[in-house]
């Protein structure tokens, strides 16, 4: 009796309990890893969802509207009796507002970045960098208010003929919105240029400005271009400023003083109305949404290409 329990105790527990402990421990670990993996794959599912949904609804749209009309017609009159489905007016609106924004934001943002990286003292930088983040956090609908009720009236002082809804004001405001992004990313790129390169330049007798423009900026080109690309994709995807202040009229024009609508503003405009599931209006916002995603994807690819193309190895 005593012996039997002794042998049993010797045979099983020590080894068994140790291995048993390890097995449950491994099981728990595996389980947690599996959950975390599933969570990560959920982000991929989001992308698949976006792409899948856009393609499926666009396919329905293009069953009813020919791709040729979509890409060549210069009218987008989905809200009227006689419907035309030409994406060109929306594309033109998007390009006009983005171009105005970039023409304003690129020079200002780059200059500010050069100043911040090469001229400003560490203390100034410590204050300015976080305030750029604060600026980037202002809600876009507030910028819409800014464009409609403050910038456009101010522009009308100089241009009395400017209509209350136009693309110039929103374009400028989008420019103001993306300056913090451009400044911040471009400054990071310039700061990461090694100090020796600046010292070499100073040793040759170059001034600060010459060093900044001829040594630092060329060395940081890849990062600066990435900053511009980030700015472009923000400008192209910006919605509320244009929806509030540009008039929501699809208008095939390259003149920024006229009212217009961008792809994003059109989506908002349609979504504001009654939007029955499966109607042509419902499908059209997915079709133009697909165009918008393709545009931003194109910019992302361009940005990636620019980063590798202009990369400087020190």
């Amino acid at each position, binding site marked *: 009796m005593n012996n039997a329990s002794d042998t049993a105790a010797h045979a099983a527990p020590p080894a068994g309990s140790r291995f048993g402990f390890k097995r449950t421990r491994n099981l*728990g*670990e595996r389980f947690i*890893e599996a959950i*975390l*993996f599933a*969570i*990560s*794959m959920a*982000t*991929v599912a*989001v*992308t698949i969802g*976006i792409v899948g*949904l*856009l393609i499926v*609804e666009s396919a329905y749209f293009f069953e009813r509207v020919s791709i040729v009309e979509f890409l060549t017609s210069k009218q987008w009159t989905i809200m009227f009796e006689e419907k035309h489905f030409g994406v060109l007016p929306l594309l033109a609106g998007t390009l006009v507002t983005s171009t105005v924004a970039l023409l304003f934001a690129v020079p200002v*943002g780059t*200059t*500010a970045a050069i*100043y*911040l990286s090469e*001229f400003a003292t560490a203390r100034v930088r410590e204050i*300015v960098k976080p*305030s750029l*983040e*604060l*600026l980037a*956090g*202002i*809600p*876009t*609908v*507030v*910028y819409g*208010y*800014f464009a409609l*009720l403050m910038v456009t009236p101010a522009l009308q002082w100089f241009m009395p003929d400017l209509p209350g809804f136009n693309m110039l004001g929103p374009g400028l405001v989008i420019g*103001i919105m993306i*300056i913090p992004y451009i*400044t911040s990313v471009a400054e990071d790129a310039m700061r990461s240029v090694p100090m020796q390169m600046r010292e070499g330049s100073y040793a040759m007798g170059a*001034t600060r400005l*010459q060093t*900044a423009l001829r040594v630092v900026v060329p060395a940081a080109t890849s990062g600066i271009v990435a900053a511009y690309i*980030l700015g472009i*994709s923000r400008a*192209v*995807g*910006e*919605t*509320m400023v244009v929806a*509030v202040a540009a008039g929501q009229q699809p208008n095939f024009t390259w003149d920024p003083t006229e009212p217009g609508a961008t792809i994003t503003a059109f*989506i*908002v405009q349609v*979504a504001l109305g009654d939007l029955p599931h499966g109607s042509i209006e419902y499908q059209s*916002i*997915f079709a133009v*949404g697909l165009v918008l*995603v393709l545009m*931003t994807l194109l910019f*992302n690819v361009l940005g990636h290409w620019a980063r590798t193309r202009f990369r400087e190895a020190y």
Partner: protein
Amino acid sequence: MLDVQAIQELVRKGRRYDAIFAIIGLFCMMIGILMLAVLLGGLVDDGAHRLNWTFFENFPSRRAQRAGILSAMVGSTLVMLITAATAIPFGVGAAIYLEEYARRNWVTNLIEINVTNLAGVPSIIYGLLALGLFVYALDFGQSILSAGLTLALMILPVIIVSTREAIRAIPSSIREAAYAVGATRWQLVRDHIVPYSAGGILTGIIIGLARAIGETAPIITIGALTVIAFLPDSPFTGEFPYLSFEWMKSPFTVMPIQMFNWLSRPQAAFQENAAAAGLVLVVMTLIMNGAAIWLRMRFRKRIKW
């Protein structure tokens, strides 16, 4: 031959250009802050007189003077609850997986590229996804639940990226020490990685939520631009089980939508309401972002590895 005068002239010219550029640069740097000041000034000028207790206590109304932002404030709060409850576990979980668990293989690469790309997708596209998926396919309708989930998807990349940065800042000696005393991977994550990166994670969460609270476009896209003059059911009930989830299915409005609604009316009185709502919104996001930046600086200073 070195001409001393020519060199002096050259130096002076260089200094002059430096000074001129410094002034231009300073101005360019200040433009953003200047504009923020003008914007705030304008909002205060137009809307400050509307900011009193009744503005916070009233529902939207056809009469501008009696309209308020009560339903919008409550709506924003409830939507943020859903957003936080979904985006935080998913964002932090994905970041922990990518930093601590993932092997270097094509699946990991796929996830990483995907997160980068998601961060660049315009917000309105998330609205389209939500319209097709949450509103119609899953039949959540134009509800608080749909809006909260939409914004959660939108800020997921923000939380993932900042959490990863915070985790990456933890030196590998911490990990090695934990493994050396026999910790499992999960024990390491639970007892060391998450607590040490909590500051950075919190910063990312606040910045993400600040972005979500001001976001308008995706919520309009799911079709939520309506005048809401009632509050959703309370999440707390008098009887067991004391919690109710009916509020998730309720129609709603949020702060930026309410502002957009007032802004798109032509009457000046409503635009004053828009300015007042905008002021509240700007102050809220400034406080949230400011808190995030302050937290980050505090943690950066305190932790010395």
